[in-house]
C-alpha cells in the first residue's frame, strides 16, 4: 500500500474505525519509531521495548473506539505505551527483587566504575532512580520535546502537576550531583555539559 502522508492521524483513525484495517498500517509506520524510543527509555532492553511497542499498538487498535480525539493520536498512543511499560516494570519488580535492592545494586556498581563511566551513563542512572511520574515528565519533556499540555494528557493529570513533576525531577538531579563529591571533582576535570548542569542547578535554585 502506498503511503499517504497528506492524511492526518485523525482521518486515518476514522477510516480504521469505519472498518479499513489497512489504514492502521500507516499509523504504525508513522509512530512506531517514537513509541519504541519511549518504551526503551523505561524498560532499557530492546526486546522488551519491542514487546511494549507491539502491545501498545494492539491495545490502541482494540480501544480505538474510546479515542475521542481530545488529545492527539500520538499523545493517546504514548499514554498507552507509558502505561504498558509501567506494567512491565511492575511485573519485573514482582518477579525479581525489590526496587530498593535494584537501586542499591546500581549505586554499588556506579561507585566502582564511576571514573570510567560515561557522563550519559551517570545521568541515565540518576534519571532511572527518579519516581515514575517524575521520570515520565522528564523523559517526555526533555527527550520527546512535548509540551506540558501533551504531557498532562499522557500522564492523565492536571497541567500544573505535570509541570511540578518535571521541576521536581530536575531539582532531584541537582541535589544528587551536589551530594556526590567524586562526581563533582570528576566533572570539573571533564568539564563540558555535566559541569554546566551542576552549575546551572546550583544557580537556578540556590
Amino acid at each position, binding site marked *: 500500500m502506498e503511503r499517504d502522508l497528506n492524511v492526518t492521524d485523525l482521518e486515518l483513525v476514522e477510516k*480504521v*474505525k469505519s472498518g479499513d484495517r489497512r489504514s492502521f498500517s500507516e499509523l*504504525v509506520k508513522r509512530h512506531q519509531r517514537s513509541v519504541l*524510543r519511549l518504551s526503551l527509555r523505561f524498560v532499557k532492553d530492546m526486546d522488551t521495548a519491542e514487546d511494549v511497542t507491539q502491545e501498545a499498538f494492539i491495545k490502541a487498535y*482494540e480501544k480505538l473506539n474510546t479515542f475521542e480525539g481530545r488529545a492527539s493520536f500520538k499523545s493517546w498512543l504514548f499514554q498507552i505505551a507509558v502505561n504498558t511499560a509501567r506494567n512491565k516494570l511492575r511485573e519485573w519488580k514482582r518477579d525479581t527483587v525489590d526496587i530498593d535492592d535494584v537501586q542499591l545494586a546500581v549505586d554499588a556498581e556506579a561507585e566502582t566504575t564511576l571514573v570510567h563511566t560515561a557522563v550519559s551513563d551517570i545521568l541515565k542512572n540518576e534519571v532511572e532512580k527518579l519516581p515514575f511520574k517524575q521520570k515520565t515528565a522528564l523523559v517526555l519533556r*526533555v527527550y520527546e520535546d512535548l509540551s506540558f499540555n501533551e504531557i498532562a494528557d499522557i500522564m492523565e493529570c492536571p497541567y500544573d502537576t505535570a509541570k511540578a513533576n518535571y521541576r521536581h525531577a530536575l531539582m532531584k538531579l541537582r541535589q544528587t550531583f551536589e551530594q556526590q563529591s567524586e562526581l563533582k571533582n570528576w566533572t570539573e576535570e571533564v568539564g563540558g555539559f555535566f559541569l*554546566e548542569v551542576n552549575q546551572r542547578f546550583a544557580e*537556578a535554585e540556590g
Partner: protein
Amino acid sequence: MDKVDRMDRMDKVRKGLKSADDLELPMNDDFFDRLHDKIMAEVEQTEIQPAPMLMTPRNMLRSHWRGWLYPVSGVASLFVLASLLIPQVSKVNQTMTRAGLLSDGHERIVSEALLSPEEISQTLISTQSESDFFMDVARESFENLSVDKFNKIMGESGR
C-alpha cells in the same frame, strides 16, 4: 533571581540533558519493517472493541475534569455561601424589623394616619389602594383608636 532567567537556565539544563542522550535506536528500515509486520499480523487477528455505552465515572472524571470541574466547583461554592448567608441575613432582618430600623413604610403610614388623620387624604400614597388602607386603619382602630378618632378618619376620607 527573576523568573525569566530561571526558565532560561532550566531550558539550558534540558538541552544539556538532551545533548548527553546516547539512546540508540536501530536505524535500518528492515528492523522497522519487521516490527510493523509483526504488529499488523497481530492486528489482523484482533477486533476493535465496541464503544462503551456508558463511560465509567473514572473515565468521565479523567476526560472531562478540565471542562466541568471548575464551573461545578464554582457553582457549588456559591450554593454553600448562599446557604450560609441566608439564615444570617434573615436573622439580621428580623432583628432590625423588631428594632424598628427596617420597615416597608406601611406601618409608618398607618401610624401617621392615626396621629394626624386630617392630613391623610393629602398623604395617601399611590402604592396602596384606598380600600386596603381603610382595612389597615380599621384593624389598628380596634386596638388603639378611640371612637372619636376613628369617626374622624372615616369622615375625612369619605369626603
